[in-house]
């Protein structure tokens, strides 16, 4: 999959066999009593990555992060940072800082003192501390608020103080626990780009925990989708979205139509027979599929075109009626019932004004998509 990047050189250390990972989880298991939070997990994270841990609540992503910070010890396995086992190193001795979900700003200290807190625990001389804090205030555009207490500033400003405080000691690794969760949507979008900008400027490795897939897609260089203490897929945002390795991942990220059927190998691909009397779906896949194998076909709504006549250049066509239309402004979602009862969601960009829209409820339409538009999944 082609990687969109600002720099002409593609940043993909995970593909470079000579690159040494910054963090290595080696067969890490964490149990709380009978409950297994992390289940035999192995993962490499590289320097300067913006790595997102994504999953529903209780999937173990926060536990994973807390083990990196040193607040939890793995029950089994090793965690290496720069090649050294850090399992026994207490949190205050790790070159790792964390930005807490609640921000955990010290309410009795000013913004300045909050940011200086970590530096004062180090052996940095006083005048250098002052300069470093000033630098952090500039980076997060908080110069004006240095003397204020945390309760005297807004939520967005508090978030930036928390970021500045955790960056002040120039950690090798910065952990962000749902950093944008407490912000409203507009502010969250702005802050996402700000975070990426700061990450790029400081060159720090970021590991972010989030349950918001959009946030993970926007900021991350790679995403790890977790469930029940296991990694389901680790890939770039586009890889996760376009090439999910399982129904779970396809379903977790974005909207998707999942159609189950029996495969039949034909020349140049496979056919998926999913309903009696319906034309089979033509699909291409790298996976080894045998005749009669049960497969799931995952296709994103935006990959399906809604037209009044079938589009001849596409391999798949299906006829149906519009059941419902979800108007989202920039695009419309069409919920179409096919002749065989299968429901499919397709979305079209609203490049025209609403008054000139082509279709309405109960209209008969054709859905068309190419043989490479969907993904064939076996798990």
């Amino acid at each position: 999959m082609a990687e969109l990047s600002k720099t002409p050189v593609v940043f993909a250390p995970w593909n470079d066999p000579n690159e040494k990972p910054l963090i290595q989880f080696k067969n890490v298991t964490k149990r709380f009593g009978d409950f297994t939070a992390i289940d035999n997990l192995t993962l490499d994270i590289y320097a300067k990555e913006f790595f997102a841990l994504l999953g529903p609540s209780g999937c173990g992503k926060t536990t994973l992060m807390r083990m990196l910070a040193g607040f939890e010890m793995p029950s089994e396995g090793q965690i290496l940072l720069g090649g050294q086992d850090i399992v026994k190193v207490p949190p205050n001795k790790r070159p790792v800082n964390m930005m807490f979900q609640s921000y955990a700003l010290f309410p009795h200290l000013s913004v300045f003192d909050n940011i200086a807190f970590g530096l004062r625990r180090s052996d940095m001389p006083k005048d250098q501390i002052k300069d470093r804090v000033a630098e952090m205030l500039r980076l997060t555009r908080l110069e004006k608020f240095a003397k204020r207490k945390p309760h005297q500033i807004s939520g967005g400003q508090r978030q930036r103080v928390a970021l500045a405080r955790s960056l002040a000691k120039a950690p090798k690794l910065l952990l962000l626990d749902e950093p944008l969760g407490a912000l409203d949507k507009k502010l969250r979008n702005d802050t996402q780009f700000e975070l990426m900008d700061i990450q790029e400027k400081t060159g720090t490795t970021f590991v972010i925990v989030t349950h918001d897939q959009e946030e993970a897609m926007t900021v991350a260089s790679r995403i790890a989708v977790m469930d029940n203490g296991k990694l389901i897929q680790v890939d770039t945002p586009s890889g996760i979205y376009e090439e999910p390795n399982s129904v779970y991942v396809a379903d977790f990220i974005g909207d998707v139509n999942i159609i189950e059927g029996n495969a039949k190998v034909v020349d140049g691909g496979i056919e998926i027979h999913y309903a009696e009397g319906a034309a089979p779906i033509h699909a291409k896949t790298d996976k080894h599929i045998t005749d009669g194998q049960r497969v799931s076909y995952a296709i994103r709504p935006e990959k399906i075109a809604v037209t009044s006549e079938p589009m001849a250049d596409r391999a798949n066509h299906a006829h149906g009626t519009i059941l419902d239309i979800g108007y989202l402004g920039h695009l419309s979602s069409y919920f179409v019932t096919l002749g065989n009862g299968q429901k499919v969601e397709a979305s079209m960009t609203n490049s025209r004004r609403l008054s000139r829209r082509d279709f309405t409820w109960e209209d008969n339409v054709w859905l068309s998509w190419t043989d490479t538009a969907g993904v064939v999944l076996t798990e």
Partner: protein
Amino acid sequence: MRFSQTLESAYASKADLVLAALLAVAGIALIWLNQADGSHFTGGLLIAFAVFVTAYRINRRLAVIAVPYLWLLVFFLVPFIIVVKISLSDPAIAIPPYTPTLELSEGWTGLKSFFGDLDFENFEFLASDPLYYTAYLSSAKIAIISTAITLLVAFPIAYGMAKASEEWRPTLMMLVILPFWTSFLIRVYAWMGILGREGFLNSFLLWLGIIDDPLTMLNTNFAVYVGIVYTYLPFMILPIYATLEKLDVSLLEAAEDLGCTRTQGFWLVTLPLSMPGIIAGCFLVFIPVLGEFVIPSLLGGSDTLMIGKILYEEFFSNRDWPVASAVAVILLLILVVPIVLFQRNQQKQAEADQ
């Protein structure tokens, strides 16, 4: 139909006034007839309620605000003015044991001679006799020291309670409050049994062989400190516990994450953030201990000098109400300073919580 409706709404809107009038009449009747014990009190209460209902109708806001002020006026300010007045009087062998008393029947001249007879003699006497100011100073010393000891004992207990698991906290809280279920006096007497020459503590230490002769603990300042710390401990524990319990654990994690050891985290985060509770607890102990009377009189010795004890002796042994009142007035003036400071602390805390 229309007529009855009008009548109904008119009745509804006037119902409260009718009620007020009935209450007032009943109250006046009670006081007038004076048939049973407490009829004055009940009657007064009924009248007060009637006044409140009427005032509520005229101006709701004012009526609601007026209630606490009226309470303070009736139960604090008026008694205080009476005490101040007595402190300016002279002792007399009479009932009540002071002169002058206000005789309204003598009219203007009576009022004039009444005010003419008031003077600051008692206050001058308090200033001239070293007994009193040494007693104030000694009270302050005992109050400060015992507040400090109480804090040192209470903080670890409150800290332990706040760190205890969720299901244990109500039980621990119960254990702290439990002593209040028996009479304060009985508990102080129990300490007499423990600290006496033949008491439990001495027998225990003798049995252990740590001492050969029983220690004199009862009727010393040591016993007073023990009694005070024991009695006032919950007043220190509860406010400190309240602030520690609210403390966000992630703040301590953040401190550790930023390079603090656990101990540094305690001094830099836990302690400063529990300061409002510490200050509140200190005032809650210091203020009543300063005027404490029961503990020093039961556990203290003849050399334990506390102003509460002096106050008691002036009232009941000497029957010198004016001097006793003067002692009380000065005690109150001394206490106003910490009370104002306490209020300011509470207010600051409330603002910070917003």
